[in-house]
């Protein structure tokens, strides 16, 4: 965006402090516009009142993200890509996490095709209160036959509502796909130096987003993007080519850096989302494990550095799990707190016979422990110790998790083990075993050492709870 401070945004706002947005002042609202936690349309007077409409238009322009935002697909599963304003996540946050598209191809037999789509659609991994899932299907034309491609696209639509990328360099093949899928708003892949006019025609006729492809030629890439913009096409994705190995990969990496830096610095012709194709690793590696590993390595590099959408091939869990997690790592908003509030939390409906489990106030630790216990329907108390947001193992090493601090936080929560529970017992994390003697002395309570990983706590409780000595 073109604004640097709330004051610059404030002067376009009504300045009436009407409070409709939920903030008490227009200045407070302005600061939320700058950190992008509110949208301009959250200011109802700006939207509704006629005399503000000109200022609304100007401010909307000024607030628009540097990197154009592109939406692909329709309905709940639609994905947005691009929309970034910074080169480093700590400067604000990255918006619109990298969309992960997994390929199918039009020479697959129907049974394999449906099975593969379902695997992609169904994959999920629980993480901090939600499921991480995959986003899209990339349909590749390996036959170069319009009819086969159309039939495959139709089968994809019948099987899933995930958004699609339609991949072919042959305009006739793309047209056949679009005839089936235009109302699903797929992303077209791709226009290149040879086919760009025919693809441009398709894109306008069917009103869909398009990828422009110029392997390791940034002048041509910018020329294609500028030409498409010049024709009135707005939703453009850039593919500078993903070369999977050697010095070509180093060059690819730097192409991504250059494109994004130029875009953030205001070069409009190139300020679009970037596509990467880690599946080119499969053109180099023969065995599945090596190819999946290298593909995941490339996917990780471009999750960190500016890939907004990627096409991948391996659907092995050992590839999908790290791909999902690194994407989440980079796109997690760094402004959200590291910590949860200390105190005694209840999981399920605990009573005097329920176990009391100690953990830290590092948000990830707490949510992991909490979800492991809740998922197994354990009724218990969790003492969340203020370890300054540090996990168990490091907090034991660094002195943020000690017997004194456990005692302090029980007292702060006014939770007396002797009166509130029948067993006067706490369960320490396995990684805090060395604190056992100290905690027994300081609390005057029994101490059990739980599993090193909270995923094993429910099983551990089955054999160790209730304790034998009261």
């Amino acid at each position, binding site marked *: 965006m073109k604004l640097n401070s709330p004051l610059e945004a404030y002067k376009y706002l009504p300045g009436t402090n009407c409070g409709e947005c939920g903030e008490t002042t227009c200045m407070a609202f302005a600061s939320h516009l700058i950190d992008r936690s509110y949208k301009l349309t959250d200011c109802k007077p700006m939207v509704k009142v006629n005399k503000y409409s000109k200022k609304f238009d100007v401010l909307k322009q000024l607030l628009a993200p540097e990197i154009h935002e592109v939406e692909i697909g329709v309905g709940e599963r639609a994905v947005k890509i691009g929309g970034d304003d910074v080169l480093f996540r700590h400067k604000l946050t990255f918006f619109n996490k990298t969309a992960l598209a997994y390929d199918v191809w039009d020479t697959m037999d129907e049974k394999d095709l449906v099975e593969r789509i379902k695997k992609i659609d169904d994959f999920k991994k629980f993480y901090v209160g939600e499921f991480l899932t995959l986003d899209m299907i990339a349909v590749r034309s390996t036959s170069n036959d319009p009819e086969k491609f159309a039939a495959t696209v139709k089968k994809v639509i019948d099987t899933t509502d995930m958004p699609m990328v339609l991949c072919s360099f042959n305009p006739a093949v793309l047209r056949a796909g679009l005839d089936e899928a235009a109302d699903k708003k797929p992303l077209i892949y791709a226009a290149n130096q040879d086919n760009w006019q025919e693809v441009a025609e398709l894109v306008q006729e069917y009103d869909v987003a398009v990828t422009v492809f110029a392997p390791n030629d940034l002048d041509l890439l910018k020329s294609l993007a500028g030409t498409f913009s010049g024709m009135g096409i707005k939703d453009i994705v850039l593919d500078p080519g993903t070369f999977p190995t050697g010095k070509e990969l180093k060059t690819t990496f730097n192409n991504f850096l250059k494109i994004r830096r130029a875009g953030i610095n205001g070069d409009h012709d190139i300020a679009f989302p970037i596509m990467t194709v880690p599946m080119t690793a499969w053109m180099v590696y023969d065995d599945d494990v090596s190819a999946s590993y*290298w593909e995941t390595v490339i996917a990780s590099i471009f999750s960190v550095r500016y890939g907004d959408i990627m096409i991948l091939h391996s659907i092995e869990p050992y590839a999908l799990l790290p791909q999902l997690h690194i994407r989440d790592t980079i796109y997690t908003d760094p402004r959200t707190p590291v910590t949860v509030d200390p105190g005694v939390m209840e999981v399920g409906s605990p009573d005097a016979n329920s176990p009391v489990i100690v953990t830290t106030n590092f948000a990830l630790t707490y949510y992991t422990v909490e979800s492991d216990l809740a998922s197994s329907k354990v009724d218990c108390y969790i003492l969340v110790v203020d370890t300054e947001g540090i996990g168990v193992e490091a907090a034991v090493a660094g002195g943020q998790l000690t017997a004194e601090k456990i005692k302090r936080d029980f007292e702060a929560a006014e939770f007396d083990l002797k009166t509130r529970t029948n067993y006067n017992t706490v369960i320490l994390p396995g990684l805090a075993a060395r604190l056992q003697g100290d905690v027994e002395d300081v609390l005057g309570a029994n101490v059990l050492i739980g599993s090193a990983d909270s995923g094993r706590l429910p099983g551990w409780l089955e054999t160790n709870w209730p304790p034998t000595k009261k």
Partner: protein
Amino acid sequence: MTNKNIKLSEISDIFKKLDVEELEGVTIEGDIELDISGGGGLNPALAYALGHEAAQVSLHVANIARMLGYPVDQLFATSMGAVPAAETTRPNVLDELIPSKFEVSKVAEWNNSIEEVTLGATSADGGSRKNTITLGGENALPYHFDGEMPHRNYVTMDVFDMPIGMAKSVKENYEDVINDPADWAKKVVNDFNADMVTIHLISTDPLINDTPAREAAKVVEDVLQAVDVPIVIGGSGNPQKDPEVLEKAAEVAEGERVLLASASLNLDYERVAKAATDYGHAVLSWTQLEINAQKELNRKLMKQCGVPRDSIVMDPTTAALGYGLDYAYTNMERIRLAGLMGDDELTFPMSSGTTNAWGARESWMKESPMNEDSNWGPREYRGPIWEIITGLTLSLAGNDLFMMMHPTSVEVLKEITQTLFGSVETESLDITNWIGTEV
């Protein structure tokens, strides 16, 4: 009939009234002069309106011509290219690409270099290492076109002075050497291509074996005998015992320029720093995911303890993928950017305890503890990639030295960091038609 001026809209109106019935007997005589007035510089809206009228006129005229039996459509087809009669949203396609030149500038604010820290000493410098390793020296973020990276990333592999619990897929690589740190060190160097070895003296922890410092120092001597790469010496993490253990270890390693791990704010860092400076070693400055604490400790090591700038390596803490890597990554990236932009308290090479990745349940657990999860697949493939991605991510933030455990992880991490560094040669690959790849 005399010539007269007529407006386009009037012509259109005239022809609108004409239908087939009225055509009979109609003759068009004389010239029709189209008076498009307004001078130069038609505004686009007016041009559009005029164009629309002209098109309407020609449509009517064409209809008349067609009535008269003239092959109008043939004429249009040859003069304008095939025009589908019903086409209303004809795409607007340019004839040529608009030429363009891509340009981007280097980052102007990166004008401070990271310190170079050399580990290990050869016989020329009073040590017995075959080679030395130099970390740091960057003047840009890693692998960026803004500046040459003078040294590649290095990997030091973990060796422990006693058998410890390990993930199954790690353990199976070390079962034959688990009771002998010297053999273990040889194995990681000779078989797994480790650049360095870290000997962790964990048995010295009073809560484990409470091995005396003097005895632990003998293990250091054994390792220095067994391998000729530079080494890192780690304590047990016990803040009371570590200073003593590291002092004795530093003494027996005199002249070898090891990296002492570590000085931290929660132990007597002055003793550790003194052990390093007295015997010519470098010191690892370890803090926990807090950039200001890192500045404070570095400052104390330099100002209060007199550690030279070329003898400090930072460990700002590594959290595993899925377990706080976002904090570790951004903390390192902020530290490196601050250093490049001139914060002299942060211009040091960095080290990562990448082995922490093995604490992530995804790396070692047989299956997901969550019933709702999709199948996690075989764990022997999950573990190494977890360690690789944890390390790779931090390498992009500027980390220089990686402490690692699994041989596959080491192999792949070295391959990718050296690829990005620019020292891996491969054959050129044609990706122009990757879509057609058969897999």
